[in-house]
């Protein structure tokens, strides 16, 4: 008997014409780690919420969900609440109390456990998740990654039998995301915990999971082993983009057979491929890693920072310690770096929100102080903030667009936003797009963006990069703070690594990611030493493909 069983489950939201979930049947064995994936609006979150009784959306539901053989509806409230753990997408909002220790024991207090039992479980959980050193801190001092780890730990302290996670890494930087995924994997492996997780970031998770469940328009497209699910997803262009780099390269090369998923498998593929073709044929292509810079030296600068120092308080440490950089008109500049390296502060300084203590910030050759009143923000500089919700003031998308004079049709997206929706009710990706439209309505010549790809799926990211490239052609300078190496490799002209408030490295993406060992793309890791300077999937596939066709030609002669 299966641990979790769905039998012809359908769900329709009130007032909706079509059901969000249609006749879904599948079963999960105990101890499985299952990834739930599908395009935006495919019903992933609805399905996951249906599995958690307290969070089940209101609407018309049919079919039966069984947990451990018993109908979920018939479970007593306490058992239902505590046997299924649920972690939401945004780390901040699901925290209830002010201190880490209190948050850990919140669920245990709700269970009505005796004091000694709570003390024991809190102690165990805190040490397992490595929370001991920040156990007594207030939650507002934690980083996003720590907050999400705390949320997971607080749920795990209640010892649920089934763990559900709704895009737990969407709001995290890649390093924190990888940590969280490793923790989830460890829970599954060490404790035999059954886990269902919705994830866009399949790069790390797909190689680890037992099965992947692919949804399309509320229907089950397939529920199969990762490699076979990857083959299935490759047939759908929207889903194919979100596959791990190795799998995408595999499909772009037109290969059949077992699909590689992890970086090491991808590397083996590249090695095998190159063994079959003469080395000089592939080696001849090393010059391909030239980035498409539009002659950045020649163009006048849009943003210049010279020896900028900034600190928030007199006694605090400098956040920016002598940063100098230059972004030319018609150039996309990507700033990468860890948490606390000063990336967002730098954007704030460029946007005139933080007055720097030393050094100069010049925008189009003029000092910030020469822009009087609001003239800086009129057809000059625009800032896309990290938290795009801070942009929204109105109750509907329509009002928001009218207020800023934004036009959605200027963006190359096939997405139509419902005009009468509240901006907060949009999905993470839709929010980002609305925000982009609003910011672009200012007709900026210098666009500053803070983590624009947070919450976007791979397909939307691709389109987003297209939109930025179109802006670049018009001569807009774009400075992007991002953690997303794949995105930066795709659209940047130059990449900068910021470390402790200073620029530690600066190069074209091909050289930058080709040299970096950690801050780099999966493809760069797969092709290191084999195809120098190769950082994107398309590039790798093109160069390998060319090499093989060249070899074939030679063989033919």
């Amino acid at each position, binding site marked *: 008997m299966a641990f979790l069983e769905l039998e012809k489950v359908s769900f329709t939201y009130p007032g909706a014409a079509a059901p969000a979930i249609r006749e879904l049947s599948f079963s999960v064995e105990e101890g499985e780690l299952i990834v739930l994936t599908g395009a935006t609006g495919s019903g992933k979150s609805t399905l996951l919420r249906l599995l958690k009784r*307290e969070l089940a959306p209101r609407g018309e539901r049919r079919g039966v969900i069984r947990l451990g053989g018993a109908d979920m509806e018939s479970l007593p409230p306490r058992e239902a609440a505590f046997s299924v753990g649920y972690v939401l997408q945004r780390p901040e909002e699901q925290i209830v109390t002010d201190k880490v220790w209190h948050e850990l024991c919140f669920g245990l207090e709700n269970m009505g456990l005796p004091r000694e039992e709570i003390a024991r479980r809190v102690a165990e959980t805190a040490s397992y998740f490595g929370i001991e050193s920040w156990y007594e801190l207030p939650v507002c001092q934690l980083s996003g990654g720590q907050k999400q780890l705390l949320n997971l730990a607080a749920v795990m302290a209640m010892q649920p039998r089934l763990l559900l996670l709704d895009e737990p890494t969407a709001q995290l930087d890649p390093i924190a995301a990888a940590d969280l995924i490793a923790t989830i994997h460890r829970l599954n492996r060490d404790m035999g915990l059954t886990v269902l997780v919705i994830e866009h970031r399949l790069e790390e998770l797909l190689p680890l999971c037992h099965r992947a469940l692919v949804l399309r328009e509320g229907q089950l497209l397939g529920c199969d082993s990762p490699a076979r699910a990857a083959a299935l997803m490759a047939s759908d262009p929207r889903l194919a983009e979100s596959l791990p780099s190795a799998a995408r390269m595999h499909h772009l090369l037109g290969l059949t057979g077992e699909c590689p998923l992890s970086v090491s498998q991808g590397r083996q593929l590249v090695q095998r491929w190159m063994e079959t073709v003469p080395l000089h044929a592939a080696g001849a292509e090393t010059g391909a890693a030239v980035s498409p810079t539009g002659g950045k030296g020649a163009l006048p600068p849009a943003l210049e920072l010279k020896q900028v120092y900034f600190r928030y308080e007199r006694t605090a440490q400098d956040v920016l310690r002598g940063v100098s950089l230059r972004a030319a008109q018609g150039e996309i500049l990507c700033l990468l770096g860890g948490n606390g390296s000063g990336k967002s502060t730098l954007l704030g300084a460029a946007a005139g929100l933080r007055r720097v203590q030393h050094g100069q910030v010049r925008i189009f050759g003029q000092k910030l102080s020469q822009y009087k009143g609001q003239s800086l923000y009129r057809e000059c500089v625009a800032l896309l903030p990290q938290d795009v919700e801070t942009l929204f003031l109105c109750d509907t998308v329509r009002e928001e667009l009218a207020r800023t004079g934004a036009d959605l049709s200027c963006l190359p997206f096939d997405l139509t936003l419902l005009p009468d929706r509240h901006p907060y009710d949009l999905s993470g990706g839709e929010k980002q797009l609305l925000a982009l439209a609003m910011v672009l309505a200012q007709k900026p010549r210098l666009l500053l963006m803070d983590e624009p790809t947070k919450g976007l799926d791979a397909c939307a990211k691709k389109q987003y990069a297209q939109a930025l490239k179109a802006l670049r052609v018009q001569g807009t300078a774009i400075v992007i703070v991002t953690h997303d190496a794949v995105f930066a490799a795709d659209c940047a002209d130059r990449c900068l690594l910021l470390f402790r408030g200073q620029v530690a490295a600066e190069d074209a993406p091909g050289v930058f990611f080709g040299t970096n060992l950690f801050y780099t793309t999966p493809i760069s890791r797969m092709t290191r030493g084999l195809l120098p300077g190769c950082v994107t999937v398309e590039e790798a596939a093109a160069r390998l493909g060319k090499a093989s066709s060249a070899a074939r030609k030679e063989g033919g002669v």
Partner: protein
Amino acid sequence: MQGFTERNPISVAVYFLAAAGVAMFSMDPVLLAVSLCGAVGLFLLLDGLGSLRSHLWMLGLFLLSAVINPLTYHNGRTVLLVVNHNPITLEACLYGLAAAGMIVATLYWFRSFSRIMTGDRLLYLLGGLSPGLALVISMALRYVPLYGRQWRRVEETQRTLGLYREENAVDTLRGKARVFSAMTTWALENGVITADSMAARGYGTGRRTHFTLFRFRADDILLLVLSLVLAGVSLWGAAGRTVQYYPVFCLSPLTGRALAGYLAYGALVLLPLILQTKEAIAWHFWSWKK
């Protein structure tokens, strides 16, 4: 382990209530002097000699309160001097000194109290009265600063978006009003997610336990009982000696009972010092033996 500051917050709170309370209900100059010395001493023990400026402020406050009484109140037999046809009397001066001592001593007791009672400890005290209220306050303590931070972020973003178009008061006010309304929506939206998170973790499914970081150990009970007993003896002793400031300052003769009261209060005031020193000595012994 620290001897006094890390005792159970209930014991510590009772101690402060006893130490400050005795001095607040008596105008006995001896008790007040002991209380003042003890309060300042304890604060110095906790804080070191760092915040000199705050001590100067306190000294100023002491002098001011001591001076105000004789300048405004002219009762008393012994006239020291006459200012603007108003007599300044010895009795009023003494009363002023005693009152100033009481005020400053109480302030110092509270300063020490607030140094020891961090958020978690206060919440523990509150949770003893009402666990539900403690949870609400804990949520508010997280939420209020969060709201403030979000407010500042929204203001900054809107500024770059050109919300405050011109630098005039009407526009600024209108902008602030819009930000406020957006923040209300944000707060509600946030609240819904928090409520989801609470429901998902079984809030409201039955009786809750109230978990705390602190427990009662033998030392805590000892401190609690000692505080109450010593305070009781001090009050009993103080009641055995009458103090009169007007029209003539008069203190009834020292009896055994009053002496016992003084000694008990002295012991009470020195209790934290004794407990902290005991731990310090214990530490030295431990490190010698190593």
